[in-house]
Each structure stands twice: as structure tokens, then as C-alpha cells.
């Protein structure tokens, strides 16, 4: 027994009673397999391991685990793909990881255009089932092997978010197990026999409680079933592919069209994207950074470094807007949109890339953001990476923020590897009503390097807080650290967390430290009291 005290044995026995022996582990080898990921903080915290890993089968199992955790006061975190281990940060005794592998069902309601997914359904599975029925969801930047439920709740910057909005805006009914083990249903699911079809319920809309700008990562309980919107898909069930991974290429049907448009400056690039969004054409549109193209195009690190050194993509596609026209209604629609696009390109000073560049890019990207995105090719150069995701209410602001971040990062090379002046990825949402951008930097996966990277992340966090920017880094910090800069949102949040999770067991330590908030409030109250002038003595009549 790895941590063998009495409480550990008791929890292990109880978990075994609930789930069966075959679905509970506490051996050191299994704990090792749930202890690291790509991020610097996980590399530095390699020794931090859970004490239990469990495999629940259904909602009832999750309820029982939550009740047990509340009773014995041990922390638990749910982890799907495990790509983002740092988000599961209960560095406390008796930490239990809930691996939802047995919860892998996806059900599509074709008529009402939504799917109900369990926590261990990948985007690829969801997309396959949707496309079979002439519908589609979206594919996140990280790749379609990511879990669809977590990605939808977290934020979900899908390729098609330009048209459909980011994933959190596509959530309908939820079945949610509270940290106390009670079930809460949201949206139409709260109405008896109504089902999952509607996100807004009869009472207040609780979806934002889970997600905010990015999710609370299970700190308010576990979503066991989630309904997500599906959108009409005008294409085939899947595209024909050729060759063998990693050289796989794909062909889109003739009535889908990718266009790759180059702009002379970032400003022109943003203007072009605004114009395209205003015209409401296309199913996917993004500004593809040259670094991203080099990463995704390369089949090995040697090829990537060669491309970087040659500066091929930088020369050909520095400010590249990639747009895919979908025949939502008919081939005529694409013909019309092509004409509109052509006018916009001319008006905004863009230029379609040469045939040579087009022929190189298209077979590799035809399926990108529709079926998958080779997200993890980004990690090849240094075998890990650091990412900052910036989110803003306008594309202009996104372009400015990413420019500022690039400049900030210049001061941290090394540890960051040289990017040779490449450009970043920018994603518009809701036809350019808002936008996001990822500034990704490769670095070596070595402890001293990771320490430097964490320093950069902390500096950038301070910068974010100071500048009042809603960035990814900010949202990864506990709310009580960031809240004072953002209208003290952490104060009501602490009350909500305490009400829903009185024993602080759900992904404890990640989202908000209630005890710290309360202590700070108490100290502030005492200080204020001490500063108050003594009450005046009553005057005699």
C-alpha cells in the first residue's frame, strides 16, 4: 500500500465497495500514469501523484464517489484525456482521480440537432456520429482526440467557431453531479420529461456558472451528461484519405473550397477578416500563423527546422487568412460566396497564394478543423510548449494583444526556442464579433527550463492583471488572485463554491481558495474596525 495510513485504507475499501475491485487502483505504478503532462508546471511537479484512480460506470457511481469524498473529506478531480494535468491540482493527501473511460456514450438527436455526450467521448467520435447524420460539431485546436464534454465546458475554440460561436455557447441541457452528490439538471432538462433540447431553463441560466470565460475544471462538481448543439453539415460522412499517417492527405468534395489569402500587414489581415465576417460567408475562417503552418505541415522535427530555416511559409504566408466555403444550401451558394470573397480580397488588398503554395497546403489542411487538427505537432520542436491564449471582444484587440505578447516573449529567449519571426494564430468567433489568439512557444522539457518558463508565465499573469486583460493565463490562476482586479468577482464565487462544495473536495485548490478569501475578508473587516474612530461618549443633557 503506497500511502498506507488508516484513512487511506478506509477510502480504498469504500471506493472498492462502490465500484468493484477491478475499477479502483491505488498502486504506485498506476498513480505514476496519472501524474504528468506537457506543461512546465506538470514537469516540475512530477512527484505529485494521486492516491487513488477510479473508473465510474455511470452518474450514480459519480454521485457515490462525491458523497464519499464529502463524508471523508478527500479531494477528487475528473480527468478525461489528461492533456491539461495542471488543471487538476489538488496537491493534497488522499487525492482521487476519476477516470471516466467507462462513460463513453454519445447519442445523437438528429431531428432536434443535438447530441448528448458523456465525459469520455472524443471530438472525433462526436464528429463521426454527427456527420453520419448530416450534422457537425467542431474540432478544437488541440486535436479531435480531446474530450468533447470537457472542451465544450472549458471554452472550445473550434475551427468552425467563426460561424457557430465557441463551444461553450453551444451547450444545451446538462446533468451535473454536485460535490455533495446531489444531481442538478439545467436548461430544459430541469423540466420533467422535457429532455435536453434547450439550454436556458425555467430559472436562471446556470451554464455560465460552470464556464465563465474558461471552465472551473470540475471545481463545482462533475457534468455527467451534456447536450451540445449540432449544425447542418452539407458534406459527406467522411472524406477520402490517401497515404499513411503521418503523411495522410485528404480531398474535400468539389463543392467545398479552401481559399488562402495573403495580406501585406496584420492590420490589413484584420480588415479582411472583418469584411469576410460581415458578409457572413464561409464555414471556417482563421488567420493561420506561419509557425502553425510549419508545425502542422512538417512530418518530423528535421522537416520543421528545415522549413523554419528556409523561411518558406514566412515568405509565402506571413499574414494568411484561410477560409473554407461550405455549400450549406447548394453549390450555387459557394459560387456566390466565391464572388463575394473575390470582391473582398480586391477591396482589402489581399492576394490568393500561388498555385504552388496552394497545392502544398491544401491536401494537408483539407480535413483540418473539420475532422482533426494535428494540434500536438506544435510540441515537436522542444517536446513541450507553453501557450498563452488571449481572448478579446474585437479582432483588433486580439491582434494588438498578440503583438504585445510576442514582444514580451522576446525577453525570454532562451528558454523559449527561436521562432524566427513567425506569426501567430488568430481565431474570430461569431462572424468576427469577438476573437482569440494563441501565442505558442516551444521550449525544452528540462527542469531548469521549465522553471524559467513558469517565471515568464507568472510575469505575464501579472501583466494581464495589471492591464485588466481577460487572457487564458489569467484564468488559470485561482480566482481569488485575479478577482480583485476584475470587480471582485471572486467574492460571490467563494460563496457559491462554499454553498455547493462545503468540504472543498471537488478539484480542490484549483478554482478558488475559499479559506483564503474568507481569511482576507476577515482581516479586512478587522482592519476596518480598528481604523474606525472610537464612538463618542454620549453628551449630558
Amino acid at each position, binding site marked *: 500500500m503506497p500511502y498506507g495510513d488508516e484513512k487511506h485504507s478506509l477510502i480504498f475499501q469504500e471506493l472498492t465497495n462502490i465500484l468493484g475491485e477491478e475499477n479502483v487502483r491505488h498502486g504506485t505504478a498506476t498513480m505514476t500514469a496519472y501524474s504528468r503532462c506537457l506543461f512546465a508546471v506538470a514537469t516540475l511537479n512530477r*512527484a505529485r501523484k494521486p492516491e487513488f484512480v477510479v*473508473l465510474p460506470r455511470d452518474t450514480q457511481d459519480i454521485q457515490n464517489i462525491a458523497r464519499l469524498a464529502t463524508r471523508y473529506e478527500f479531494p477528487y478531480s475528473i480527468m478525461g484525456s489528461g*492533456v491539461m494535468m495542471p488543471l487538476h491540482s489538488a496537491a493534497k493527501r488522499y487525492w482521487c482521480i476519476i*477516470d471516466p473511460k467507462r462513460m463513453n456514450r454519445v447519442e445523437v438527436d438528429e431531428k432536434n440537432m443535438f447530441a448528448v455526450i458523456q465525459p469520455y467521448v472524443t471530438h472525433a467520435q462526436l464528429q*463521426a456520429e454527427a456527420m453520419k447524420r448530416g450534422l457537425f460539431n467542431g474540432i478544437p485546436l488541440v486535436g479531435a*482526440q480531446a474530450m468533447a464534454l470537457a472542451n465544450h465546458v472549458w471554452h472550445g475554440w473550434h475551427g468552425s467557431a467563426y460561424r457557430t460561436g465557441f463551444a461553450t455557447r453551444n451547450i444545451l441541457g446538462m446533468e451535473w453531479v454536485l460535490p455533495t452528490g446531489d444531481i442538478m439538471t439545467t436548461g430544459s432538462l430541469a423540466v420533467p420529461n422535457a429532455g435536453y433540447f434547450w439550454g436556458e431553463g425555467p430559472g436562471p441560466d446556470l451554464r455560465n456558472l460552470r464556464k465563465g470565460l474558461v471552465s472551473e475544471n470540475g471545481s463545482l462538481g462533475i457534468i455527467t451528461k451534456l447536450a451540445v448543439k449540432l449544425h447542418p453539415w452539407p458534406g459527406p460522412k467522411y472524406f477520402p484519405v490517401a497515404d499513411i499517417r*503521418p503523411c495522410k492527405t485528404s480531398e474535400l468534395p468539389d463543392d467545398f473550397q479552401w481559399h488562402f489569402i495573403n495580406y501585406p500587414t496584420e492590420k490589413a489581415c484584420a480588415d479582411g477578416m472583418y469584411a469576410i465576417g460581415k458578409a457572413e460567408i464561409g464555414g471556417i475562417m482563421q488567420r493561420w500563423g506561419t509557425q502553425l503552418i510549419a508545425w502542422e505541415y512538417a512530418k518530423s522535427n528535421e522537416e520543421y527546422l528545415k522549413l523554419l530555416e528556409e523561411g518558406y511559409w514566412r515568405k509565402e504566408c506571413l499574414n494568411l487568412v484561410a477560409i473554407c466555403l461550405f455549400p450549406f444550401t447548394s453549390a450555387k451558394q459557394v459560387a456566390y460566396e466565391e464572388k463575394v470573397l473575390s470582391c473582398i480580397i480586391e477591396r482589402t488588398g489581399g492576394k490568393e497564394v500561388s498555385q504552388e503554395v496552394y497545392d502544398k497546403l491544401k491536401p494537408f489542411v483539407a480535413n483540418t478543423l473539420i475532422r482533426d487538427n494535428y494540434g500536438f505537432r506544435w510540441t515537436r520542436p522542444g517536446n513541450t510548449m507553453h501557450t498563452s491564449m488571449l481572448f478579446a471582444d474585437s479582432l483588433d484587440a486580439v491582434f494588438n494583444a498578440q503583438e504585445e505578447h510576442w514582444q514580451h516573449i522576446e525577453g525570454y529567449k532562451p528558454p523559449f526556442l527561436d521562432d524566427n519571426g513567425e506569426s501567430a494564430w488568430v481565431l474570430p468567433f461569431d462572424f468576427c464579433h469577438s476573437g482569440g489568439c494563441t501565442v505558442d512557444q516551444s521550449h525544452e522539457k528540462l527542469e531548469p527550463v521549465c522553471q524559467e518558463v513558469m517565471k515568464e508565465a507568472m510575469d505575464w499573469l501579472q501583466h494581464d492583471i495589471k492591464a485588466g486583460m481577460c487572457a487564458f493565463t489569467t484564468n488559470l490562476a485561482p480566482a481569488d488572485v485575479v478577482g480583485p482586479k476584475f470587480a471582485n468577482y471572486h467574492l460571490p464565487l467563494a460563496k457559491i463554491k462554499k454553498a455547493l462544495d462545503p468540504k472543498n473536495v471537488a478539484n480542490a485548490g484549483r478554482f478558488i481558495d475559499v479559506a483564503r478569501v474568507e481569511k482576507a475578508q476577515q482581516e479586512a473587516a478587522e482592519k476596518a474596525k480598528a481604523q474606525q474612530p472610537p464612538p463618542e461618549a454620549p453628551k449630558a443633557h
Partner: protein
Amino acid sequence: MSAEERKPSLPTDEFNRKWYWDFRKNAWYCLRCNNCKWIDNWEVKDARFARICPSNAYYLFDTYAAQGRMDVSLDLIDGVLKYEDDPEILDILYACNTCGGCDVMCKGVHDMSPINVILEMRAKMVEDGQLLPQYLPILESLRREDNTMLGKKADRGKWAEGLGIKNLAEESAEVAFFTGCRFSFDEELWKIPRAIAGIFKDAGVDFGIMGKDENCCGSRPAQMGFKGEFTKYAENNIDAWKNAGVKTVVTACSDGYYAMKRLYPEVGSKVEVLHMVEFLARLIEQGKIKLTKKVPMKVTYHDPCHLGRRLSQAISVFNPNERSMGIYEPPRDIIKAIPGVEMVEMFRNRECAWCCGAGGGVIDTYPDFNSYTATQRIIEAQETGAEAIVTACPWCERSLGDAIKETGAKIKVIDLVELVDSARQRGGK
């Protein structure tokens, strides 16, 4: 444990130091991206058939995926984890079909090779005396009888009795047909090497077999971690072919083919090695086999791992020149050339194919896991409406065949050779 305490004591000799760093580089670079558990996302056509790793699908914990195995291996070689710390370590590292699915998916995005980490770790475990008890009879059979099937060496050539095939221990021939352990000792499968002998004779191929003097090819021992046994058998076989003046070795076993094609050159082999699928394609192209008879049957093809993705996995980093090493199209081309045969693909095919369950010693050591894996493939094959699964490996045939018997599924498994044999024009007519 502090960072200082976690520092491993490095091997002092150069070979082991290099091994340590090569190994560590691969295992440490795992980012937990989750790709090793799923087929290529472009290829997912049905949510039920999206997984690539049988071990992870069966045992469910991440420890039973390439990612988890690399985490465990890393801690083991770094001394953070000891074998005695967790009795499950043996199962974690041995309950793997070494099908290479994780590896081909990983190489899609990284420059690393999980399958090599798993195989090297097994070799190290053997070196450290960490053997599965189930391996002991196999090891005994290898040492006494030179086969993995617990059969008698004297019975090895029994399948060929009465066929009048040249014995290469006594005569020479251009082509050596390497039968392999499974075909030699699995009587139910003898019809396949016997059909091959018929095809060779009719096509005028100058061929022979080593009969009772044939050794195990070493592929299975290598998969189980017995590197020494592999080298011994490779050297013995290479010498025997040299003595018999053999120019080409043909085998119908995919495991054996992988070993002879990809691993033997490292031991000094220079002979041409062909899988029966390739040899059939050559004979058809030369007009020595004519596929004229109608075989009215709807079939699907199961890609044996060692005839497909494993062929390009002797390397750690993806090499563009190695990309087409997997033999995916020749068997399909042959099937499609047979009159009357309707060929349908399973959801997972080519480099995304689901393993039959037999690989990595699993067929002998983890029968339940083996049966689960094979049954999943049968279910997938039945989804296509095919009457038969055609394949090109005796291990797949045994594993899938047993699952069909267990489940009572209405489908059969046949070797490509049998299909060709049914369709070919005989005796020059």
C-alpha cells in the same frame, strides 16, 4: 521526493549509458496528448470503432496505454519505482499486444517511438529476472524444442508429409519457404502451407523447406523480451539459408516476416525476404497464377499488425523514405482481382487496423484479453456484412478463429492463400 532524490544513478558503461538516454528521451518526451489511444481522427467513422489500443480498451486505466507504460518505464529506469513496489507492474508491461497502433498514431505528431520503449523495457525486465510465470513453459519449449508452441522439434515438418517438398537441410533451392512455429504446430492451419506448396509447384517455383531443422524465427521471443533467443535463432536461420544456397525466403507468417525483413539485416541477413502476399502478387504479375475461377463471396480484409504498421516502426523518428513500408495494398489488389469476390473495408483498416489480439505473447499469457480483442474485431467485421475475414497471418487466423468459435459468430476467417487457391486455374488449364 525532491528533485535531487529523483536523480537516477547513471549506467557507467557506454553501451548502457547510450541505451539509457535513448530510452529516456523517448519516454520522457511523452506529452500525454492522448493520441496513442485512438485511431487517426480523420479516420473515425463510427464512435464504437475509434480506439487503437486494445490493452487500454480492455484494462481501461491509462497505465495500460503507451502513455502510462512510458510513465511507468521512466520511473522504473530512474529508480523512482521498483518492481516490488507494485505487483501490477508485470501485467502493465506484458499485457500489451505490441501491435504498434500507439506508435503509428504517436508518430503522426511526435518524433518518438512508444513501441520501442515497451519492447526495450520488456528486454530489460527479462534481464532483471522479471518474467511472467506464463512465459516459463514457452521459454522451456524454446530452449529444448526451438519453438514457442510447446511442440516437439521432430514434428516440425509434419505438415508437409507426402507432398514431396525438397528438404533444404539436404538439397538446395532458390526459394526457402519458412513455415514458422504457428503453421508448423497448429494442425488446423496445415491446409494453408499445404496450399502454398501446391501453388508453388504449379507455378514452377524451385522451393524447399527446412522441415524439422527449421527454428523459431525469433519474432515472438523478441516481442516477449528474450533478445538473446532472438539473436540465436536469427543467426541459425541465416546460416541455414546460406548453406542451402537460398536466394529468397518466403513466409506466410506476418510475425516471421517482420523479424526476417526488419530485424534480421541487423544480424547480417542479406537474402531477399518476401511475405506470401508479395510473392503471390509477383506470381500473378508474371502470369504464373491465373485467377479465373469465380468465388462468389463478400469479404473484408484484416491487416496483420506485423504486415502493416509494424514494418515502419523499427525507427524512432518518422522517415519519409520508410512511409510505404507497410504492405497494405497488395493483398487488397489480389482480393479485388478475384472474380466474384466483393471486398468491403472495416471501419478500422490499414495503419488504423484493430489488432487480432494474439501479438506480444498475449495469446499465450492473457487469454481473456486476447479473446476480448479478437471478439471486437469480429464484431467490426460483421458490421460490414462480410461472410469472411481474409487475412495473411496464422496468429491472426488462430486468434480470430477462436473468437468466432467462442461467440458463434456467422463469419469465417480464411487466409489469402486459401482464397487465391480457390480462384486459381490449376494444372495449366
